């Protein structure tokens, strides 16, 4: 068999992401095996729980490495991924991260590291473009002090300041709380034209709802961690309507056959659609990895890495076409702007 | 026979400390148990009240087998204890402590009367009735512990070293009170280091040594017994 590792937060605060990742990768591996496997062998997915914590992640990586996986998919969270990077690299195991957007991960020049997720600076750029287009002069930026959200917020702040937009409010909430009225009240008194929230959907849903309840009609733009149907459930359609957010396109919005087939199969097997785009990106990691193995006819890390860096071009992924640059970053415009309509649907903006 | 203990054995962990204690208390009696430190007197009292588990033997209170009952049910039968080391409720007020003494009483309206009676016995408690019990002086706490036991209006009162830490005047008062309480029909089982006073008050006595009853007699006889004098009455008095 060919062993492929999956490192995912199966327990801990990000357990829902991790469990989705596992479902997706196992689904894809099952399909692959049904169609004859890889290089004539079966593919076996070995998953390891990183608990959403760097130390556990290091152990999980160590565990996968000792089980001789060809490559590892994962994981969610930049600092978690970072704690495992060296371990894979030192053992020459390919790692394809799915939910790790910090710029520095690929700045180290690690040969075997790739990611299917885009980078923060890319998103920052798209976000600022959008804010400019809306014509806001006074912008409030709110993050949640996680690596990802803060990185994005800082990126956006720097770009906006360059463009002479006033940052009238810049602060961080504590994720996991329920009542954000104090923050909203404070933000309101800063009188922004629009708010850029770079954190995650659970908090965003609450913010939208509580903002609505206090009759404050400021427009909100969210980062890509808001692409989750639960956002609407939390906020309620009335409060969510008009909310903009950035995201790589969701499978539902991709015209490609890969995307719709995948969605169908997923729905058939698990009865729902995937919770977030980040989990789907792990599926893309799995697909490019197996594609590279197939193309090179080898499980040798150097050959596979070389293929991914240089030869894989415009691979049809579940989230659009995929190519990697020499640092292992995904190339191409990935981010789009979405808007929530009156029915609570996510509408891709032109 | 009001209280009938037969062949009582009690263990703490693996160590047996009572090796078959047999003793009786008749209705209306005052019975005292003498014995050196660690002889097992307190353990005997605690096992009557159900606070330590009985390993073997029976404790009959009239027709109830106490060793099968739980502590609070035993109290309901009319058995109150003033335990060793006072064990007052230190963050309750004096008055609340006394009320707890009457916890199982049904005659609600008469509780106030009993309390007034206790206050008359120990006027200092009345002065301190809103003070937290933990801040009372040692002796005051002892008074409170006794008062709390009396609040129960029990049929039998078990007292473990009630005179500990009390001023001489009060010791006298306490013994006098016990006498009065007894006259009023309450049976008393008394453990006391002040053996002389205890024997003067009691009708009968038992002597206990390392977990066994070694002697049983009327109080007068025990007072006159040279061995008892030697061991518990400090020889001939200085």
């Amino acid at each position, binding site marked *: 068999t060919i062993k492929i590792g999956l490192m995912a937060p199966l327990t801990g605060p990000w357990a829902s992401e991790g469990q989705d990742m596992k479902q997706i990768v196992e689904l894809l591996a099952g399909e692959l095996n049904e169609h004859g496997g890889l290089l004539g062998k079966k593919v076996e997915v070995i998953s390891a729980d990183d608990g959403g914590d760097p130390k556990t992640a290091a152990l999980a990586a160590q565990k996968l490495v000792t089980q001789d996986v060809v490559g590892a998919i994962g994981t969610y969270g930049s*600092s978690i991924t970072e704690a495992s990077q060296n371990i894979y690299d030192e053992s020459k195991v390919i790692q394809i991260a799915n939910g790790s957007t*910090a710029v520095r991960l690929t700045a180290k020049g690690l040969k075997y590291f790739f990611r299917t997720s885009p980078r923060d600076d890319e998103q920052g750029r798209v976000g600022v473009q959008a804010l400019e287009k809306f014509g806001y002069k006074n912008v409030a930026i709110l993050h949640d002090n996680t690596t990802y959200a803060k990185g994005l917020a800082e990126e956006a702040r720097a770009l906006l300041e360059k463009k002479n937009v006033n940052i009238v409010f810049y602060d961080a909430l504590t994720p996991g709380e329920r009542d954000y009225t104090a923050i909203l009240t404070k933000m309101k008194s800063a009188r922004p034209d629009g708010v850029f929230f770079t954190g995650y959907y659970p908090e965003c849903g609450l913010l939208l709802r509580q903002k609505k309840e206090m009759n404050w009609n400021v427009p909100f733009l969210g980062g890509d961690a808001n692409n989750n149907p639960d956002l609407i459930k939390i906020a309620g359609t009335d409060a969510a309507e008009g909310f903009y957010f950035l995201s790589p396109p969701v499978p539902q919005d991709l015209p490609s056959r890969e995307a719709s087939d995948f969605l169908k199969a997923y729905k058939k097997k698990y009865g729902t659609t995937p919770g977030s785009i980040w989990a789907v990106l792990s599926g893309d990691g799995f697909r490019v990895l197996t594609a590279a193995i197939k193309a090179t006819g080898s499980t040798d890390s150097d050959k596979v890495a070389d293929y991914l860096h240089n030869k894989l071009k415009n691979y049809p992924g579940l989230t659009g076409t995929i190519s990697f640059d020499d640092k292992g970053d995904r190339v191409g415009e990935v981010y789009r702007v979405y808007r929530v309509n009156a029915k609570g649907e996510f509408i891709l903006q032109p | 026979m009001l209280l009938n203990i037969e062949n009582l054995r009690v263990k703490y962990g693996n160590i047996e400390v009572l090796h078959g204690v047999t003793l009786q208390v008749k209705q209306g009696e005052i019975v005292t148990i003498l014995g050196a430190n660690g002889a097992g007197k307190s353990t005997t009292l605690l096992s009557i009240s159900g606070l330590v588990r009985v390993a073997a033997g029976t404790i009959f209170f009239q027709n109830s087998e106490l060793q099968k009952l739980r502590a609070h049910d035993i109290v309901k039968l009319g058995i109150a204890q003033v335990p060793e080391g006072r064990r007052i409720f230190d963050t309750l007020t004096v008055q609340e402590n006394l009320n707890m003494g009457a916890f199982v009483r049904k005659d609600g309206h008469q509780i106030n009367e009993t309390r007034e009676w206790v206050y008359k016995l120990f006027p200092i408690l009345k002065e301190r009735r809103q003070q937290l019990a933990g801040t009372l002086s040692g002796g005051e706490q002892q008074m409170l512990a006794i008062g709390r036991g009396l609040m129960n209006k029990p049929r039998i009162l078990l007292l473990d070293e009630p005179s500990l830490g009390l001023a001489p005047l009060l010791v006298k008062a306490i013994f006098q009170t016990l006498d009065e309480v007894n006259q009023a029909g309450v049976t008393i089982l008394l453990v006391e280091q002040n053996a002389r006073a205890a024997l003067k008050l009691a009708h009968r006595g038992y002597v206990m040594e390392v977990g066994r009853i070694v002697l049983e007699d009327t109080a007068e006889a025990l007072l006159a017994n040279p061995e008892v004098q030697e061991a518990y009455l400090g020889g001939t008095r200085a």
Partner: protein
Amino acid sequence: MRDHSKIIYSTMTVLLAMSPLFLNKYWVDVLNNVGLYAILGLSLNIIVGHAGLFNLGHAAFYAVGAYTAAIFNTRFNIPVLWLLPLCALSAGLFAAIVMRPIIHLRGDYLCIVTIGLGEIVRIALINDIFGITQGANGIFGIDRPSIFGISIRRPHEFFYLIWGFVAVSVFFFHRLENSRFGRALNYLREDEVAAEGSGINVAHYKLACFVIGAAWAGMVGDIFASKMTIISPESFSFWESVLLFTLILLGGSASIPGVILGAFLIVGLPEVFRGIANARMLIFGGAMIAMMIFRTEGILPSRPRRYVLPDESSGESRA
């Protein structure tokens, strides 16, 4: 009885020392984590086990040490092992300063304050206090340690560094607890008023055990930082303090073998349950309850100290 356990302990030590020879990287790395927790446990044991002080914020001191190492290593390129004394100093000093005004708090009040301290430190790290902690990103690019020019990178190499440190810690903490200092902590654990009334400066000793425990945790922070090469605030969460606290009580508080065993349990059990992925923490929680019920004092409870008494016939008599 005594010799019996001596044999067991020496066999265990030898087995452990040889284990890298027959274990794969993963299990060696698990053992490395056990070792780190063991040292942290020993450092907390002084506070929780011996002095009976309710510290649920030990991660704060550990964090101070780790960040000291990270900052000085990445900014000034000082080799991490040279930074050990500095990490001990900074964590110890931190403990001395922050605990000073609150050391007189009792029981659960001290507990919440230590939780608070842990949280304050974590929040400060996330918010990039003084602009030196790099916020939630944490500090990356910390050097691996090197001894005599040999860089330590693989789990097997770390194993000897970490367990060497465990051995040193056991050596010193064993001496510490069998001394006037260790006894003083026990006295104040048993009864503060009586301890003070026997001439023991209770406040001083409470503070001293925090300082020593913190300093030691600070050194572990240094090793941890160099092992991970990246540290971030989430490694020093409240949960971390909870684990440390728990391992002491599971193993046996105030007992060195107990604490080490506790480290094995706390790191090992979740690893063993990895197979049942989603339910592993559920079982872990249940196991915690069961172990406390069946071994209230921990699995290897502390034993009374032994003293060699002078005079009276047969040489050594035990006390």
